[in-house]
């Protein structure tokens, strides 16, 4: 059966992905710009289109906590949040991953207070880098929808059993109407098996979840967690391969656009990728040898793929949509630099921070960034990184 291609708001597409995945429990708290996701899910439940328990919790901390409980008894669990909400549930994120509970969450990336901003950037999720979640960034509506379906499959895989986050830019993606292929339920059922937790809470087989660890044993628990998250990459690759075989769209941790043997590369995450592609086309039309790297898999970090993608480049310009104050600037740029540090042959890595608090960057803006980046690679710079588009 052919899938339907519909013009649909990306938030609604996420709700439909949750419906097709037949989630059991949705426990969420509303926060702009994620509201349409949870509202659409509530509507599906109220109309009997999705048979799930919708728990209207009283805060994001409780939202993620309820997800822990539901997942621990074997229920397929989904939630969504943004910005401040992600920060409020911060301590619970660590528990989800260290207790190996495969909760799936959509994060409508939003800037952090203060000052209050409801608009999109990556600050919220950059604070969650170390939480041990699988983290994927979507660049458009179709990717978002597909990533949510894949997230269930990856998170619940018996070899993984780790929570997974799908990141999409707040407003720039959540509130856009895009053409998205929505598969039939039967196709999704072929792709996504039912959720089976190996040791659920069950009175007939009593287990203790969440014991405390003294210094004698804590290190070993973290080693186990690290090994598992790293090993998840193989499962992610396999899942994306199978998804491609079934639905015709293949995803990879790192995607190149005119990258082969290109001297100057720009690297971005999220919806900026699409805008940057226009800039790349324009510059290439002018005879400039530039290309784009879209980073899709953020955790576990795709070291091999990144190193391979930049192998031939001389300049790598990284645009971050988050700022680590008093430090090296962009988190993505820092990690890329660190990944390339030991390579014999590596490009000069130039860092930019832009697009904060929902500020847009046009294709012209990307042109400016690339040209400035090339300039810095030749002349050097006093600063660790540059903030783009600041009115001085």
């Amino acid at each position, binding site marked *: 059966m052919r899938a339907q291609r519909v013009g649909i708001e990306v938030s609604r597409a996420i709700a439909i992905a949750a419906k097709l995945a037949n989630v059991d429990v949705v426990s969420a708290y509303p926060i702009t710009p994620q509201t349409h996701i949870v509202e659409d899910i509530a509507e599906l439940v109220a109309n009997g289109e999705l048979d799930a328990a919708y728990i209207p919790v009283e805060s994001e901390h409780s939202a993620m906590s309820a997800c822990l409980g539901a997942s621990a008894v074997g229920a397929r669990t989904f939630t969504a949040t943004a910005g401040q909400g992600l920060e409020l549930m911060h301590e619970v994120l660590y528990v989800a991953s260290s207790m190996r509970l495969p909760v799936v969450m959509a994060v409508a990336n939003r800037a952090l207070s203060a000052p209050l901003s409801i608009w999109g950037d990556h600050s919220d999720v950059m604070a969650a880098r170390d939480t041990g979640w699988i983290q994927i960034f979507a660049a458009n509506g179709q990717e978002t929808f597909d990533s949510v379906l894949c997230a269930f499959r990856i998170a619940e895989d018996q070899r993984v059993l780790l929570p997974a986050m799908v990141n999409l830019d707040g407003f720039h993606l959540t509130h856009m109407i895009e053409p998205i292929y929505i598969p039939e339920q039967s196709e999704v059922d072929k792709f996504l098996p039912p959720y089976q937790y190996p040791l659920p809470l069950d009175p007939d087989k009593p287990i203790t979840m969440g014991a405390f660890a003294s210094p004698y044993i804590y290190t070993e*628990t973290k080693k186990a967690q690290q090994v598992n998250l790293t090993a998840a990459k193989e499962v992610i690759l396999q899942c994306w391969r199978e998804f491609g075989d079934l639905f015709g769209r293949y995803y990879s941790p790192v995607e190149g656009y005119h990258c082969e043997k290109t001297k100057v590369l720009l690297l971005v995450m999220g919806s900026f990728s699409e805008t940057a592609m226009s800039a790349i086309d324009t510059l290439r039309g002018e005879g400039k040898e530039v290309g784009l790297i879209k980073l899709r898999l953020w955790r576990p970090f795709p070291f091999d793929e990144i190193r391979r993608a930049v192998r031939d480049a001389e300049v790598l310009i990284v645009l971050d949509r988050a700022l680590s104050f008093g430090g090296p600037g962009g988190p993505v740029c820092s990690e890329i630099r660190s990944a390339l540090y030991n390579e014999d042959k590596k490009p000069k890595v130039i860092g930019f921070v832009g697009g904060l608090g929902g500020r847009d960057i046009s294709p012209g803006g990307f042109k400016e960034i690339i040209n400035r980046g090339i300039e810095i690679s030749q002349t050097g710079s006093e600063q660790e990184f540059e903030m783009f588009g600041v009115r001085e």
Partner: protein
Amino acid sequence: MTKSEGELTWRGLEIGSIITEPGNASQYQTGGWRTQRPIHDTSRCIKCGLCAIFCPEGCIEPNAEGYFEPNLFYCKGCGICARECWTQAITMVEEEE
């Protein structure tokens, strides 16, 4: 015998550090804590079982004849049983070295 925390390797841990042996703390000898121990006088014991109810460790059980006696592997010597016994059948004495 559960491996102690100092012996477990990261591979030996269950997923999410879940403990799958219910009640395996019963291997831990809390009886080593006490500085006094209860002595039960069966001639005064009326087998009411209140000492068993009030013991925070849950380590007082009736023997074959039905008289209640403490399990010294666990008994911490708190003295609640001696204090609550209706017939004063239990006395606390200093634990010898």
